């Protein structure tokens, strides 16, 4: 018995040592939270009911939850009742057992935290579903997941009957990563001044400015007005084109125990070839994105440079005449008469080939610089409304 206890302590200690909280989490005092739950998908668009277990995650510690939906004695397929029970550190009580024994579907979900950092959790997940009180799992899975803060991952879905009185045709099992803020800092409101700064090849600067605010730990979204780059005219009857670059994302700040601020910046860049004036036909954007963790002083302006596109292109019929030819060619392709078109060379910024204008983004944006500058300050509690300047 004593040996078992020592082994258990050693295993637990090794788990904690192997999975320390990240520096950001220690600095900000936040705690990772994992929610395991089931929720109904209603047929009429209304918000469904849910049941789940939400727990602060400890590094290396295994936790189990039972969730059940529907009752065996109800008409076939009704999913009107649901309940969740946490069995971590205890046995199921009588109420839990009665519910599980009578349930139409029972899920057992076991999670073990592997890596915990601000904004990300990696967990080992093991789950099984038992139908109609069977002791044999109908379906079971093991997986390792990495979830961003606020991200939900669906694990399983069961269908009921559409005629059920509770309008619940389906129940979905899912896990969600959340974060519990440090109580002393949870009500702090942060103000984010964000600039998008573009320098072209000649050094000319163009800027956009947004002001956001929100409770610390929230992630207000930003979406800068687009920046436009003209596309040169290569033939007389060419349409007017431009490339629109849009920068969007979220910014999440947290005050640290020593008065600094931890910043999580999620940014997306998309480039889209557009006709002027805009037409109903819009070309899909070429996009890329990333996430960066920063720590700085309150009021400190930090510039984050965005990479220029390394590849990618967009193309469109170059003119009205070319558009007609493209349509004729498309109808010829449908009749299997036209040969396939070759790929245009990728080293020219803009070219016209086979009646199509192509913008290759790597050479098109070469020599240009695009940055986001972020500056975080504490704000008054009454100024949580985001604003755009």
């Amino acid at each position, binding site marked *: 018995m004593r040996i078992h206890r020592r082994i258990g302590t050693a295993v637990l200690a090794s788990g904690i040592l192997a999975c320390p909280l990240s520096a950001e989490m220690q600095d900000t005092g936040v705690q990772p939270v994992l929610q395991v739950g089931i929720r109904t998908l209603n047929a009429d668009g209304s918000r469904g009911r849910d049941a789940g277990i939400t727990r602060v995650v400890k590094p290396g510690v295994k936790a189990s939850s039972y969730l059940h939906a529907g009752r065996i004695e109800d008409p076939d397929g009704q999913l009107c009742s649901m309940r969740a029970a946490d069995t971590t550190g205890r046995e199921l009580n009588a109420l839990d057992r009665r519910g599980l024994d009578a349930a139409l579907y029972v899920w057992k979900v076991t999670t073990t935290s592997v890596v915990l950092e601000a904004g990300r959790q990696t967990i080992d997940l093991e789950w099984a579903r038992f139908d109609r009180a069977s002791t044999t799992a109908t379906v079971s899975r093991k997986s390792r997941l990495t979830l961003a803060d606020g991200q939900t991952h669906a694990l399983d879905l069961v269908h009921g009957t559409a005629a059920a009185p509770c309008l619940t045709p389906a129940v979905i099992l899912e896990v969600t990563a959340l974060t519990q803020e440090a109580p002393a800092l949870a009500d702090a409101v942060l103000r984010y001044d964000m600039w998008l700064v573009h320098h072209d090849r000649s050094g000319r600067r163009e*800027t956009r*400015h947004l002001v956001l605010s929100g409770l610390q730990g929230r992630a207000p979204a930003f979406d800068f007005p687009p920046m436009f780059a003209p596309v040169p005219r290569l033939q007389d009857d060419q349409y007017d084109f431009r490339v629109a670059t849009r920068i969007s994302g979220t910014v999440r700040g947290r005050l640290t125990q020593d008065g600094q601020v931890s910043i999580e910046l999620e940014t997306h860049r998309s480039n889209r070839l557009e006709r002027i004036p805009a037409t109903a036909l819009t070309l899909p954007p070429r996009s890329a994105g990333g996430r960066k963790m920063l720590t700085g002083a309150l009021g400190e302006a930090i510039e984050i440079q965005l990479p220029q596109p390394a590849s990618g292109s967009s193309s469109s019929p170059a003119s009205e005449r070319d558009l007609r030819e493209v349509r004729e060619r498309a109808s010829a392709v449908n009749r299997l008469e036209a040969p396939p078109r070759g790929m245009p060379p990728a080293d020219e910024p803009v070219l016209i080939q086979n009646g199509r204008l192509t913008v290759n983004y790597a050479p098109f944006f070469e020599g240009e610089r695009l940055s986001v500058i972020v500056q975080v300050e504490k704000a008054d509690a009454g100024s949580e409304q985001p604003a755009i300047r």
Partner: protein
Amino acid sequence: MNTIHTEALSALVDGEPVDPALLAAALEDPDARAALVDFVRFRDAARADTTALPAGLDRLRQRPPLPRAFRWTAAAAVLALMFVAGMLAPQPWRQDPASSEAPPQPTRIERFEPGVDWHPGD
């Protein structure tokens, strides 16, 4: 004669605001045009009358001189009002970080690294 037209032209001669559409209609009216000529003649005649008023009546035009102390107080009040208005008025030339479009000078520069923390989205 359309009195609305003549009133509009009278207002025009007196330098008052007039509805342009009404003015256009009035100028189309021959009677109103004749009235306009009369208004101008009357005004010229009034301007030409430079006869001095009798001395007793002429004194009525002059305001009594204000006491010197009152004048200084009024001047000080005007200056104070101008100062307060200047404080409250927007000052776009001042570098207020909250409202400036120009970005601040960054203290450091970070970079998204392609393949490390920056990935293609499509």
